[in-house]
């Protein structure tokens, strides 16, 4: 009698568990976990990232007939919170893929959670990690070297022989300087100065005077956002006549607002999405970029004016492509699926996004090539393609 009861109870529990299992299998959508800075000092980047992701969800809400569920958490521009968010997404929401975020340190924190929990992470910013130890992480952003190479190529074409450098005192300033030091000697260009300033500085007159005294043919700046406008303003004030070059950290409407007329004719690299309308019709990313503009306008009731929302969109496209292949191997929501998804992402071939054409392979965090960059010129407050 007792044993019968036990068997029955066991059977009931087993049945209940199976039922639960079936129910969860039926409801198993694909789950995307996004952690992004909706508040805090990085929110001017984080908000566009989130808006771009909403546009992507509207553009491709289903993959192979399966709905995709997007879970968005705010990391308040804090790497610790970003790491905690990633853990929450992985452990509580059981997401299939992590995406984020607007700051490099925060993205690194998320990537480490992705690695520990064996969940693929698609970064939306450059991530500075050793790819050999981080086989679960990749990013849709362009590597800094790729962008700076484009600037140096342009300098060479404009017969620049000597270039002065002025940039931030932080990691971004170093990154740009190192990329410049790598590319410039190969192009026969001499870097004559390495001046630095802090993001919060009120004036760079001292540094600029030193650069102007060296009379370089051009000046390269390593800043980002509104503080990146300072060297442009100071060089203009000192009557510097050479070319001033920037990099993709400056492609931001606030930079344009603050730099005003002093930024006229400045050249910098960016993803082609910024000047999508001006690209030749045969440019590989033109069609998807115009589609993105249209869907973004529809979802957010405002035009895109930044490069960040497009990274989210591209991250989604890469995920959708990989997921449709991984779903043939495993069921979403399982550990096997996450492995299959990672393998699928790292075998991505020629997925056309708004910023570039993505082909990932193991051992590298980045998946873009020369098609992911164009040089633009600031002309009366508008970005113009400089072919």
């Amino acid at each position: 009698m007792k044993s019968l009861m036990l068997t029955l109870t066991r059977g009931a529990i087993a049945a209940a568990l199976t039922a639960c299992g079936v129910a969860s299998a039926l409801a198993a959508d694909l789950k995307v976990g996004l952690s992004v800075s909706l508040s805090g000092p990085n929110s001017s980047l984080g908000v566009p990232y989130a808006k771009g992701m909403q546009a992507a969800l509207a553009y491709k809400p289903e993959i192979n007939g399966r709905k995709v569920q997007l879970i968005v958490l705010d990391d308040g521009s804090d790497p610790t919170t970003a790491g905690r968010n990633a853990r929450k997404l992985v452990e509580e929401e059981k997401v299939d893929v992590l995406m984020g975020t607007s700051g490099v340190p925060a993205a690194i924190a998320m990537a480490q959670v992705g690695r520990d929990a064996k969940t693929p992470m698609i970064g939306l910013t450059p991530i500075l990690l050793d790819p050999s130890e981080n086989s679960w992480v990749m990013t849709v952003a362009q590597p800094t070297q790729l962008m700076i190479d484009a600037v140096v190529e342009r300098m060479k074409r404009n017969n620049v022989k000597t270039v002065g450098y002025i940039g931030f005192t932080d990691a971004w300033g170093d990154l740009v300087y190192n990329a410049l030091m790598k590319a410039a000697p190969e192009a026969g260009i001499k870097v004559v100065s390495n001046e630095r300033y802090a993001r919060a500085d009120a004036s760079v007159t001292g540094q600029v005077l030193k650069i102007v005294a060296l009379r370089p043919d051009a000046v390269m700046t390593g800043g980002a956002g509104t503080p990146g406008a300072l060297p442009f303003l100071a060089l203009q004030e000192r009557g510097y006549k050479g070319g001033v070059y920037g990099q993709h950290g400056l492609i931001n409407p606030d930079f344009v607002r603050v730099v005003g007329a002093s930024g006229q004719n400045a050249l910098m690299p960016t993803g082609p999405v910024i000047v999508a309308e001006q690209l030749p019709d045969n440019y590989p990313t033109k069609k998807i970029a115009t589609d993105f503009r249209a869907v973004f306008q529809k979802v957010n009731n405002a035009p895109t004016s930044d490069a960040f929302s497009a990274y989210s969109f591209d991250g989604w496209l890469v995920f959708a492509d990989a997921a449709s292949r991984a779903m043939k191997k495993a069921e979403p929501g399982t550990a096997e699926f996450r492995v299959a998804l990672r393998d699928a992402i790292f075998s991505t071939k020629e997925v056309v996004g708004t910023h570039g054409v993505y082909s990932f392979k193991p051992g590298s965090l980045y998946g873009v090539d020369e098609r992911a960059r164009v040089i633009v010129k600031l002309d009366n407050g508008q970005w113009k393609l400089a072919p």
Partner: protein
Amino acid sequence: MTWDVALILITDGLANGAVYLLAGLGLVLIFSVTRVVFVPFGDIAAFAALSLAAFETGRVPPTIGMVAVLTALALATEVGSLLRRGEAARIPKAVLMWGVLPAIPCVLAWLAARPGVPVAVHIAVAVLLVVPIAPLLARVVFQPIADASVLVLLIVSLALHFLLSGLGLLFFGPEGSRTTPLTSAVFTLGDGFTVSGQVVLMVGAAIVLSGLFFLVFERTVAGKALRATAVNRVGARLVGIRPVRTALLAYGCASLLAGLIGVLIAPVTTMYYDSGFIIGLKAFVAAIIGGLVSYPMTAVGALAVGVVESFASFWSGALKDVIVFSLLIPVLMLRSFMAAHSEEEEDEVDQ
């Protein structure tokens, strides 16, 4: 380094020094009258600059809402304390002082945000709008703890700075703003050496305002009351000076200075929600050189800080702030050797 470069650096340094001078005067004024190291001083300057930038981009500056909320808080505090003391008859006057008076700049600012208002009006309104901030904060926060130790006051003041800069981030966003120059004039001196009109304006404003300060302190009753309170609070009270009222006067003057600083530097530097802090900190170095009591020494200190900063940025941009703040070490050492120990500690025991 050539003479040209040195001249440019000196001009740049003097222009910055002029700003630190005004900020230093404000800090010394508040500290000598109330013993508060008013850290949020720079934040108020940033609020003025960003409000002006908001006007220029055709937006209603969110500062209006903040001043309005502060007004409501101050009014509630004042009415509450009057009721507690059983002086309900004085409530109408309090409403006029704490409710209506600070609301006037808010209304003006709201009106000035309409299109077609001349720039001069925008500048004046941006300055006026921040004038009530320090007195209102003082009424809500500092007046109830006016007799606390300098350290407590400093900590409260620091907390207030974080509150204000947080609000600044909320109101104006993380990106900075620049306003159109007040003047585009350029003066040529000698062979090709030019000084921009904005720099002349900044230095001129510093000279005129410090001159005004001197006259007010030497010639007017209110100025003498401020000086008396600075010298000895208890003594001042004995001769019929009300420390609460002089404190409010000091806060009001400092707030006005902060507003002027804001609109003066907004066209030459990019102002962020937190740029005020570093201006305040450098002005604090100047004020420390003046021992937090001496106006002329503060002025000299401010110009020194400006020029040192300018040359430091030429020699090593990355270490600029390190060099400026290192100035504090020798100054403080010298002061601690020279100064007789103050009666501060005794005062606190008495209370």
